[in-house]
């Protein structure tokens, strides 16, 4: 804590944890597996990068247990860019999270894309100074993660598919359930809290403000500028793009195009313009063709 001499300095507060996510709004967070890719992402206009060993499409193709990345890889990526660096820990693996905090990453993603380490408990995220982002498929799941200390939520989608349909479903579910809460009377909110399996105070807060108390991004299957703009028009604060960039024909160009489409998500002319000549999109898998055990979104609860 060498940062200032001011005696009343507070580190790791909810406000600074949630605050970094506020600064990422309207931006694109890109999965990268090397320092070179991180540089390409930064140059293309990523607001942050997600450092990992294999993008979800490869995790899916290669199978096996997916874990936290090698610290050398994370160090290399942290030192290659000046934008925030996020890294993934397995669900419930609080020691991987301790390691990532020691490596000075800017955000930890407690992620269903990796193999869960605990099928009962998520990480107690209040124990950390570093903020966490967690996936959710519905409002109850989002509020449970926030209760555990998540400072940012991303809808899960189905990572590594290039199929945006699950991302659409999850963001629509979350925003739809928020809209339902807004119309409820106080006595109905007690039941809503029970049904959402979330604390009443948090449910009442969402009902009153009409939004989550933390930033909401979307993830999982975003592969084109139009996909990113779709997520933004559906109410996302920003977009994670995993395999969609570096599994495509021209990553630099596609990355820059997705950034522009995220800012001008409501301007079809800009989206049309940036969508031209991007080369091959990632090949993709239809989520409907995935056997249920291979669906990552069903990890976490």
């Amino acid at each position, binding site marked *: 804590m060498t*940062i*200032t*001499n*001011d*005696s*009343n*300095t*507070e*580190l*790791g*507060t909810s*406000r*600074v*944890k949630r*605050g*970094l996510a*506020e*600064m*990422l*709004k*309207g*931006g694109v967070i890109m999965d990268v597996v090397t320092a070179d890719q991180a540089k390409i992402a*930064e*140059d293309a*206009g*990523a*607001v*942050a990068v997600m450092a990992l060993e294999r993008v979800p499409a490869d995790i899916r193709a290669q199978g096996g247990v997916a874990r936290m990345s090698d610290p050398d890889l994370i160090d290399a990526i*942290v030192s290659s*860019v*000046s*934008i*925030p660096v996020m890294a993934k820990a397995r669900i419930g693996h609080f020691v991987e999270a301790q390691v990532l*905090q020691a490596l*000075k*990453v*800017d*955000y930890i993603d407690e992620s269903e894309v990796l193999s869960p380490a605990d099928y009962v408990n998520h990480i107690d995220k209040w124990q950390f*100074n*570093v*903020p966490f982002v967690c996936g959710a498929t519905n409002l109850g799941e989002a509020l449970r993660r926030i209760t555990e200390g998540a400072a940012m939520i991303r809808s899960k989608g189905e990572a590594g598919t290039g199929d945006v349909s699950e991302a659409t479903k999850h963001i629509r579910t979350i925003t739809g359930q928020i809209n339902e809460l807004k119309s409820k009377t106080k006595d109905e909110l007690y039941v809503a809290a029970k049904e959402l399996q979330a604390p009443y105070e948090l449910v009442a807060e969402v009902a009153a403000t009409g939004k989550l108390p933390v930033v909401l991004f979307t993830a999982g299957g975003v592969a084109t500028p139009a996909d990113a703009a779709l997520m933004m028009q559906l109410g996302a604060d920003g977009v994670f793009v995993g395999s969609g960039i570096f599994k495509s024909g021209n990553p630099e160009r596609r990355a820059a195009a997705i*950034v*522009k489409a995220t*800012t*001008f998500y*409501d301007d079809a002319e800009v989206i049309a313009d940036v969508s031209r000549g991007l080369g091959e999109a990632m090949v993709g898998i239809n989520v409907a063709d995935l056997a249920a055990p291979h669906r990552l979104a069903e990890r976490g609860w």
Partner: protein
Amino acid sequence: MSPTSLHRTASPNVAGSDTLTVGVLALQGDFREHLAVLRGFGADAVPVRRPEELDSIDGIVIPGGESTVIDKLSRIFGLAEPLKRALAEGLPAYGTCAGLIMLSARIVDGIEGQESLGALDIDVRRNAFGSQTDSFEVDLKVPAIGEPPLHAVFIRAPVVERVGDEVKTLATLRDGRVVAVEQGNLLGTSFHPEMTDDHRFHRYFLDKVRAAR
């Protein structure tokens, strides 16, 4: 996104009668929070993403966000040059965090090719405190806005490393590092008043906008 507020109520906090139109650069970052604060003071706050949207504003706020992204998008979409000209002609501007970096004359540690608007005669260093785990909140004495001290939120924040002759330092940390500056109609803070309920910096800025109009 609603482009303009429907309610043009005069604020008790800002002297004068006519409504001020204040733009907020809305390419990336926490521009919605700034729009809400400015509307709370009765200003007609409008998001700015296109060059022509600069024409009708009395002042501009550049929000927090990622400075490399805001810089890139402002040049790609043709905002940077007209904004530089407007600032040179005296358009009042307030930058928070990434916005302070954007307003600066020089970025000490920008990424390759990163540019700034060159309005405030200062040099800034990005992420001057370290990674996110070093982000912090602190009470700051700011004589220009009076008592009590301002509770300031620093998130991967920059500091001002050189202050030009025309620039007035408004606040420093106890170790002397400069975190708020003013130069004529320009105002910049390393921290984020839009993230708290204490909006004296916005009021201070709106007073400048009104005086400059």
